[in-house]
């Protein structure tokens, strides 16, 4: 099997996987490692993937890989995402926009990190990853209604927390 069919099928989803990895990692360098590991694992399993939705499949691998890493290092994601975000971002190539935009992103990142894990994962899958609630439910192994309930509470809580971080409505 050559690698071109795999690259053709998966590279279009790199931005989505990266966005999710950023929310599951302490800094950009760790997120890059996570993405690399995700694609390496996906490459291993590509022959068995069939014709399913590639984006959902990659996202599931990314989340499982992040879980494995967390278990291995015995760290908690809530402390990971918020803690060194500022320093990590300074060294990243992906800083976009002006300083204000960067600060806003850090504020939203901290607010996301403060959400309960289940709500944060639902938001990461649906609002950042672009999955439907049904697709997220399949990845999480939960009923669609549960994902929707987590989404609703998580979104509302995120708005409240972001406002506490100084992000006012309309900003």
């Amino acid at each position, binding site marked *: *099997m050559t*690698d071109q069919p*795999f*690259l053709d099928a998966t*590279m279009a989803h*790199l*931005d*989505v*996987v*990266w*966005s999710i990895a*950023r*929310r599951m990692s302490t800094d*950009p*360098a760790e997120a*890059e*490692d996570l*993405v*690399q*590991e995700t*694609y*390496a*694992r996906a*490459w*291993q399993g590509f*022959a068995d993937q069939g014709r399913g939705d590639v984006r959902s499949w990659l996202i599931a691998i990314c989340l499982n890989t992040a879980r494995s890493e967390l278990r291995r290092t015995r760290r908690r994601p809530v402390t990971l995402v918020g803690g060194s975000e500022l320093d990590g971002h300074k*060294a*990243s*190539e*992906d800083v*976009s926009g002006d300083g204000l935009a960067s600060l806003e*992103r850090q504020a*939203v*990142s901290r*607010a*996301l990190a403060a959400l309960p894990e289940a709500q944060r994962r639902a*938001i*990461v899958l*649906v*609002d*950042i990853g*672009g999955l*439907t*609630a049904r697709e997220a439910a399949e990845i999480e192994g939960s009923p669609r*209604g549960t994902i*929707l*309930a987590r*989404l*609703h*509470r*998580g*979104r*509302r*809580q*995120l*708005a*409240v927390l*972001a406002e506490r971080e100084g*992000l006012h*409505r309309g900003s």
Partner: protein
Amino acid sequence: MVHEDGRHEDRRLAAYVGSELGPAEVEAVEAHLLDCDGCWQAVRDARRGRALAEAMRELAPASLRDRVRMTVEGAPPTLGAHRRRRRLGRSAATVVAALALLGGMVWAGVGRGGPDPASVTAVVRAAGARTAPSAVVADGQDIALSRDFLDGKPVMVARSAVPFDMPPGGRHLGGPDTPWVARRASMTVVCLNGPDNVLVVADLPAERLIAWATRGPAPVEPA
């Protein structure tokens, strides 16, 4: 809308905010929102939260795109799991050979004089940098870089589709096809060439780094 069932309401409103309802359901929700201040406010907050989360989508760095491609192109799918340390794994015989040599046996093959290969220089330099790039090109050789940690110290792991040349003073642990080791200042450089070429560099004793780099064996799946 059924206000007595809070969870049911949450689900319906989340689907509405996420544009996952059919036309008839949308109409029903919007009719309800006209009369219910609580749900109206909940939808406003949820929309705000969704917009904030969506704004966190990012474009992947260009260097990551290259790194992923190099990972895939340099790793045949029959090599088993790609966990970082497993990728460095080799046969148990290699481990035994490496440790035996470190125990005082002969070094077989020593690098000749001349300047260091550009690839080795680039990786050693990246290992000493506070912020290392994720990939470098040295004398036309594409090298993917990542960091790992051993004994609390950073280990620079470099991969390339092309074997890494041994620098002057480097020594093979066995025959010419076995891993080679070199020292550069305080850094130990260990190279495992072929089938995937890996160079690891760290400020650690050679024995420790070799044992780590050759830890394995990697699981091999049936062809």
